[in-house]
């Protein structure tokens, strides 16, 4: 790779535009610090001409949500023969859908909370009260209601009583027409990042998330202070190994490349439960992958540059 030549894609029209812009700026800054030439571009009608003109060696899509993570931007990059960082379109598509990702991961032997995926139309057909009643009957309480696609905890509600379910459904459907309802697993919340700099996937130390005031919601994720992070997570060595193994299994089962972040909950018996996968994990000041990388002794610019080189070579 010679001059540029990294084009970071950030922004987009998703609900997570703001987070994406922040991630993009941080990664670009770190890569520049590592001596690479980096430009940042939004996903807009100027992108394809810009790709043709800039001819970057590699594109790093730091897009969160919608076309950035559902594989469609990557489809276009494939189409124009543009190398890029991260999962291919098929793996992106599978991972972007929480129910499909959960099913794939579960087949690979990883525990994941019981869940049901429901399009909004089903409630109209069957009657909301009856459907919700059968869900609480089968899955019990508490439950987590979330959009089937999306990140940053947008539209997510933890429901402790049946009366709160309708409002939680409405909030989830505001982000998309399909929602999933899953059993809430109590335990230690950890995020485990995997990076591959060319010599195979490497698991970074788990980051333990302990909300100090209120839930781990959008505000808690992006404004420092409301959450205490422990890196590595305060797990015994056996559990630490299981958690790492789980993240690796998830990364491989979903066919991911270069980087990923699994969100897991470790229950009281030390079993890691798969909750979510991020193929374009957040890279902001408060994000989890950078915290894990620092704890593992990486210098961020150096790590990101190695990921870029691996993607270029691969």
């Amino acid at each position, binding site marked *: 790779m010679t001059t540029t030549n990294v084009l970071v894609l950030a922004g987009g*029209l*998703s*609900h*997570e*535009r*703001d*987070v994406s*812009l922040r991630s993009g700026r941080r990664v670009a800054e770190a890569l520049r610090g590592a001596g690479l030439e980096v430009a940042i571009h939004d996903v*807009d009608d100027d992108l394809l001409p810009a790709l043709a003109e800039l001819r970057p060696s590699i594109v790093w899509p730091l897009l969160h949500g919608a076309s950035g993570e559902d594989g469609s931007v990557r489809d276009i990059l494939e189409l124009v023969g543009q190398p890029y960082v991260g999962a291919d379109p098929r793996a992106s598509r599978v991972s972007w859908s929480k129910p499909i990702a959960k099913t794939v991961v579960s087949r*690979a*032997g*990883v*525990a994941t909370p019981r869940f049901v995926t429901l399009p*909004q139309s089903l*409630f*109209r057909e069957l009657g*909301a009260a009856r459907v919700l009643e059968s869900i609480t009957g089968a899955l019990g309480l508490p439950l987590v209601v979330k959009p089937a696609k999306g990140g*940053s*905890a*947008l*539209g997510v509600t933890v429901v402790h009583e049946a009366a709160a379910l*309708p*409002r939680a*459904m*409405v*909030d989830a*459907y*505001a*982000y*998309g027409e399909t929602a999933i309802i899953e059993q809430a697993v109590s335990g230690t919340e950890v995020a485990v990042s995997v990076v591959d700099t060319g010599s195979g996937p490497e698991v970074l130390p788990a980051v333990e998330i*302990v909300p*100090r005031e209120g839930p781990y*919601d*959008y*505000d808690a994720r*992006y*404004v*420092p*202070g*409301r*959450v*205490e*992070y*422990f*890196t*590595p*997570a*305060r797990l*015994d*060595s*056996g559990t*630490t*190994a*299981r958690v790492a*193994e*789980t993240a690796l*299994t998830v990364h491989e089962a979903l066919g991911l490349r270069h980087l990923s972040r699994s969100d897991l909950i470790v229950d009281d018996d030390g*079993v890691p439960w798969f909750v979510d996968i991020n193929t374009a994990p957040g890279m902001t*000041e*408060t994000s989890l992958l950078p915290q894990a990388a620092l704890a593992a002794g990486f210098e961020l610019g150096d790590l990101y540059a190695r990921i870029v080189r691996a993607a270029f070579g691969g």
Partner: protein
Amino acid sequence: MSENQTPARDASSPVPTPAAGTRLDPWIGSYADRTHGMRASEIRALFAVANRPEVVSLAGGMPYLEGLPLEALAETAREVIAQRGTVAMQYGSGQGDERLREQILDVMRLEGIEAHPDDVVVTTGSQQALDLVTRLFVNPGDVVVAEAPSYVGALGVFRAYQAEVRHAPLDEHGLVPEALEETLAGLAAEGRRVKLLYLVPNFHNPAGVTLSLERRPRILEIARRYGVLVLEDNPYGLLGFEGEPLPALRSMDDEGVIYLGSFSKTFAPGYRVGWAVAPHAVREKLVIASESAILCPSNASQIAISTYLATHDWRGQVKQYQELYRERRDAMVSALAEHLPDASWTVPDGGFYTWVRMPEGIDAQAMLPRAVTARVAYVPGTAFYADGAGADHMRLSFCYPTPERIREGVRRLAGVVAGERELVEIFGTTPEAEGRVVDPPGPDLT
């Protein structure tokens, strides 16, 4: 991998020393109490897409500046630096440039205010004046009475000074005197000290309504009787679409009213110049407080505005704005009638905003992500209440988008409301009576 497939390794190895936790902010224990309420809500994050051209934003309050004589203003700015640079680039008076303060009197005379240049304190936008007045008067726990709904930027200032905001309702003629009396009587019975009555009497943000001439003296009389200082915030007063401006509250009461004015809407916000007119004793303290906050307002900005007022037809510019915004108001109101007939809305006689009551059962805050998906943005009513009320309303701005874009935005909004209505019918939910308190969108939102 399931439990029984997990390699049983390291089972006997010692538990590692727990890592120290981090909250990613070494100063987490140092913040003042008033800082703890500052949050980055997901609502605020959703506004990030509003400035993209694909999105019709009916959310922001940016004035439309295309009609400004930019070439002439550029020449003015050049002359200010070239000919008066050693003054323009220097510190100036804490109270503000004297010539500008005299010219501000001319502006205020249009709304019946007779004052002396000494009564005027120039500030960095009227927002700073709002901050200074609150700083002078409000102790933590003191009560500020504001209209329901009220300007989101004022609520933010009151919250920062740990005031408790109580709302008094308004109707199509502005703040309701009987309701104000009831609110103040109730607070007196509770033994609460009310420090300020905050009002936007003209073309209210967000409600779009104007306090009627008949109610103005009644509101002042009630405030006087309860010993409450009136804070009259009037950024839009000259932007009426018909008739003459109503007399300001300050024109009816020199001693009981602090008046806030601004060039941000009648000229442009870029120079950040606003002002306060206050009773003598208050004004002295305002100047001292302002000096401690910013030393002095920008000399360059003040001289540029002063030159503009002296050399341009600023009244003609205001008239041009009136016509521009009236056309957009008309587009908004007719689009609402066409596309959202079962909502209801105020028809403002001036200013930037209309206040829309949602059809039965619709929660404007919960609906916002759906609107963003449909490429239209608005501000949910919850932003304009200190107590989480307002989910059944939204504020729509007509100041920045063209009439065509306004019509398109309302058309999209109608689709969003239809989708939300279906959801509400399925689940039988109602707007949250006490929703989350919403942070305002940033000022650079279109």
